[in-house]
């Protein structure tokens, strides 16, 4: 059985994130890392493998992004994934949701068609796992788009994942309710940050990762043309990006013997909230 975990290399949220002159996200000038929310996806993939002792299960970490994005795959390998694939091609830069999901879907199909080529085991791809959102775009739409493109059941935003045989059940928090969703493998699964703490790479894991297979693919390898993806053919266009002016410093008071509550209520009243 093969599991593919989609991981994204994102600008560090604690760094000074910004845009390039062409209004795409600066993915090179700002320190990047494996998106925190994708660590939960890697974790669930590893747990899925660990719970099925005796079964031959290979976890492949897949990313699409510039040269440095390979760090996201490396981190996944250090955590315990077995193999990695990095799709890198200048023509992909600036892709929107549709372009990105297309490249990911084609890469998954390629792994499915020939798993041995990436060091994965035989027998198709039974599970595609994603994080609930990226920490940069926060769209939360790519997992659903992958399910649509791959024609696989969409089992997304899981806070709890359980499986037995080819049956998977998850718990999902919706707006007004909590739902249990059931489906039969193969599926596309996305997991939230409630699904379970992600492990840190061990020293042993870091050393072992260096010997794991890591493939680099271009668009040609996926049978895609440069004019099918990227900024120039994106279905959406960003016209302008503006840094939000910093909030002007507000009034800060220190509470002494109830003065804080009085000042607070006066402030709220002055703004007509009371």
């Amino acid at each position, binding site marked *: 059985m093969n599991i593919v975990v989609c991981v994204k290399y994102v600008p560090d949220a604690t760094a000074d994130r910004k845009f390039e002159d062409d209004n795409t996200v600066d993915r090179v000038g700002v320190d990047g890392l494996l998106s925190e929310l994708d660590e939960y996806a890697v974790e669930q993939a590893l747990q899925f493998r660990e719970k099925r002792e005796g079964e031959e299960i290979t976890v492949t970490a897949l990313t699409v992004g510039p040269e440095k994005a390979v760090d996201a795959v490396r981190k996944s390998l250090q955590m315990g994934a077995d193999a990695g694939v990095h799709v890198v091609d200048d023509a992909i830069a600036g892709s929107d949701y549709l372009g990105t999901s297309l490249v990911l879907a084609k890469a998954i199909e390629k792994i499915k068609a020939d798993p041995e080529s990436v060091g994965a085991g035989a027998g198709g791809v039974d599970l595609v796992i994603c994080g609930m959102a990226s920490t940069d775009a926060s769209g939360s739409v790519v997992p*659903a788009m992958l399910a649509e493109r791959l024609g696989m059941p969409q089992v997304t935003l899981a806070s709890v994942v359980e499986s037995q045989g080819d049956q998977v059940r998850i718990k999902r928090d919706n707006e007004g*309710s909590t739902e249990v969703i059931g489906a039969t493998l193969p599926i596309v699964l996305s997991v939230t940050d409630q699904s379970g703490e992600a492990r840190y790479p061990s020293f042993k894991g870091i050393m072992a990762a260096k010997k794991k297979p890591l493939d680099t693919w271009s668009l040609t390898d996926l049978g895609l043309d440069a004019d099918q993806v990227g900024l120039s053919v994106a*279905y959406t266009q960003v016209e302008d990006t503006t840094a*939000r002016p910093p909030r002007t410093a507000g009034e800060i008071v220190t509470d002494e013997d109830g003065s804080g509550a009085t000042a607070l209520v006066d402030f709220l009243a002055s703004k007509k909230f*009371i």
Partner: protein
Amino acid sequence: MSEVLVVVDHADGEVKKPTYELLTIARRLGEPAAVFFGSPEQGDAVAEKVKKYGAAKVYVVDDAQIKGYLVAPKAEALQQLAEKTSPAAILLPSTFENKEVAGRLAIKLGSGLITDAVDVAEDGTTTQSVFAGNYTVQAKVTTGTPIITVKPNSAAPEEADGAATVEAFAATVSDVARTAQVVATQPRQSTGRPELTEAAIVVSGGRGTGGNFEPVEGFADSLGAAVGASRAAVDSGWMPHAFQVGQTGKTVSPQLYVANGISGAIQHRAGMQTSKTIVAINKDPEAPIFELVDFGVVGDLHTVLPAATEKITERKG
């Protein structure tokens, strides 16, 4: 004038405020047509509501074949409706589920998708607030039918007369869309307080509550506010995840946001930074939340909040 499809946000037929906000926005782009996924028996009642906000039509899509499966059937139904009506745009309230519906729909229609817009202009240009509210992005769909998910509180609902002609729309749901089954649904118990994402005032608590949310809840009730929580409070098991404000919870944009015992980590800021007025109470004068506030109190929430609650109740007397 072309129709603009607006997916109705409702709980069991009870139309929610974001619907009216979307209808108001839709009128800038064309003629609003509400799309109601629900029981056909509730169609007329929904029409009565949306007609006051300019809906010319109400497409009622019987959800009997739809609600038992996750996301995919709704995307199919909207695709069929879009092919029939050739709308100028499709607007959905920005919930996790609707964003997923929109994502699948974008692929089906070969159309551009913009998520989490906080405004949409007459020419279809959207405004988004990104990078934890540090940047504002203007964007436009350039290919296909613009599909835009819009956050709650993005527009003030404006009344306008609409015909709200009810039309049943029979959608065909394929087998492949019925593969992720809703096995069980447990409705969340109502707190009696306003909905977090829709509320005009949100009062949140974090690690500093030490697990005691009574002062936060009491203060919220004195202001008629919704109650929220930071990830730290949710991870500690003090509040259910549904109350989490932040990147992996709800994004709120109320008139007033009061953060109590919340340090202001990036994860939290991403969910509240666009609030109009921000107030914080924290024991630590160095807490980063104070960089955002219009008004801050350095002090213990366990004493400040009950005292403030009492004063507000007195004033309202």
